[in-house]
């Protein structure tokens, strides 16, 4: 009797050890690719880092030297455009879904937002190409520009990718705000819209900020939707209505180019891009952890 119990116990302990080891192994396995990628970037990208990379624009093709300043600036500008155009509708949608969209219309919109989140980014690119790039003639009449491919179109493409991410994060963060907090505001005679603006959104702001940063990190690495919207540019440009370069596009061009200096700069560019994304993600986590709830 006692022997049986102790045997039983031993078996349980062995199973437990094996299961724990398997799960821990799986957990470590997941981060192996990340570590390898980072290792590659450090090994290949770090030596290629040079001040010129940030201060110089690409030189004539085939001539070593030069930098990717135009791509870094372009990426930042595209991200800025995406935020300016994408955030207002995205946050508004999130507020609608959380605070008003409890009925059938809300259900439909929530579903469509999820569908949009699943649309491949290249498809978004084609859509913007058709809707904006091919229609630039009409837009240029107002702006006086003469380009078809523009930073503007690239910004729209990135904004469309951000939209569903930020909407759903906003919705989820607003739903986390306790009903008690809303009631406190209603009970003071604060109307619903004002309650949302002054009480609910601020209470959810750190979570929403995190979502925005993560969405930014996501679109910062997008190349596909920029291929035929922002197009890329071998020259430095900060104009919204001209083609503009972006880090992912530059990396693609250089990585597939014939010259060794291009390969080095592609690695360095990748390193810069990953660091940007990493800094943003870590920043977002810190934002979320900051007390304020």
């Amino acid at each position, binding site marked *: 009797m006692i022997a049986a119990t102790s045997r039983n116990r031993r078996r349980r302990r062995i199973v437990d050890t094996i299961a724990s080891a398997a799960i821990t192994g799986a957990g470590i396995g997941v981060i192996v690719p990340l570590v390898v990628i980072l290792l590659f970037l450090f090994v290949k990208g770090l030596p290629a880092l040079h001040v010129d990379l940030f201060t110089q624009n690409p030189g004539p093709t085939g001539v070593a030297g030069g930098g990717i300043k135009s791509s870094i600036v372009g990426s930042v500008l595209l991200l800025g455009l995406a935020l300016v155009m994408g955030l207002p509708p995205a946050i508004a949608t999130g507020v609608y879904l959380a605070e008003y969209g409890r009925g059938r219309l809300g259900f439909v919109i929530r579903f469509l937002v999820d569908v949009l989140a699943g649309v491949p980014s290249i498809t978004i690119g084609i859509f913007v190409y058709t809707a904006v790039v091919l229609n630039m003639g009409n837009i240029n009449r107002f702006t006086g520009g003469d380009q078809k491919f523009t930073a503007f179109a690239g910004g729209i493409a990135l904004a469309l990718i951000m939209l569903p991410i930020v909407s759903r994060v906003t919705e989820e963060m607003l739903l986390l705000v306790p009903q008690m*907090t809303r009631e406190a*505001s209603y009970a*003071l005679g604060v109307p619903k819209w004002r309650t949302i603006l002054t009480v609910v959104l601020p209470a959810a702001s750190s979570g929403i900020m995190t979502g925005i940063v993560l969405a930014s990190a996501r679109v910062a690495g997008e190349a596909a939707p920029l291929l035929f919207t922002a197009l890329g540019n071998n020259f430095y440009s900060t104009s919204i209505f001209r083609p503009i370069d972006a880090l992912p596009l530059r990396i693609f061009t250089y990585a597939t180019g014939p010259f060794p200096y291009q390969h080095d700069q592609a690695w360095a560019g990748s390193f810069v891009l990953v660091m940007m994304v990493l800094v943003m993600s870590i920043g977002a986590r810190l934002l979320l952890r900051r007390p304020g709830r």
Partner: protein
Amino acid sequence: MSIEQAARPATSAAEPDGRAVDVRGLTAWYGAKVGVRDVDIRFPQEKVTAIIGPSGCGKSTLLRCLNRMHEVVKGARIEGSVRVGGQDIYARSIDAAEIRQRVGMVFQRPNPFPTMSIWDNAGVGAKLLGHRGSELSDMIESALRRAGLWDEVRDKLRTPAIDLSGGQQQRLCIARCIAARPEVILMDEPCSALDPAATIRIEDLMRELAREYTVIIVTHNMHQAARVSDYTAFMLAEDGAGGRLVEFADTDTVFTNPSDQRTEAYVTGRFG
């Protein structure tokens, strides 16, 4: 009619009702479920009235009907009428937000706004009324003083309200309510999340507030009702058909010489 009432023509013009709350034939539903049924009661002005009864007897529901917070819950509706100072608060032309400013509410758990400072918390209602600058500052300070919180927070008005203790937070919620210049203050078990010391402070405050406001509290605690209230209403839900008002009288009568057997059974601790 006192001078103070005469100075409030907006609320006393219709009827000389001042700040009394008059409930007639009130039935409240949550969807298909009845919360309270056929309640007639008149809460006298500038008194503390306690609503007591066992869990699920509809006391909180009744309270939430008095400032139209009941309708915040999805599927909730009411029948009957509620008049505050003679005015039907469910009249079609009246906005719920306006009623909630006039009939303030303090909740079971302290619920200061988590992102705001002590100062901003206390000022939300006053700001909503359009007060700004030194006028606003005065209102906030006087509200904090009347809530007995001023001396404890005067040096840290700009710190987050959630850093206060539970009892202080609840007094801040009372200050926030007062600063909105209500006529009636509803309190839904305001001490149930507080320790005994904090409870006593809030109870003193209730007595204090009754000099200017009509105070209506819901409480689980019969001793609290006996200590602080002038009048007591006893509610009971017997047949699952919603809570009804069993007895309403001055507190002494309810606790020492109730006219209904069920009231007597409850206040003597035989059930509930």
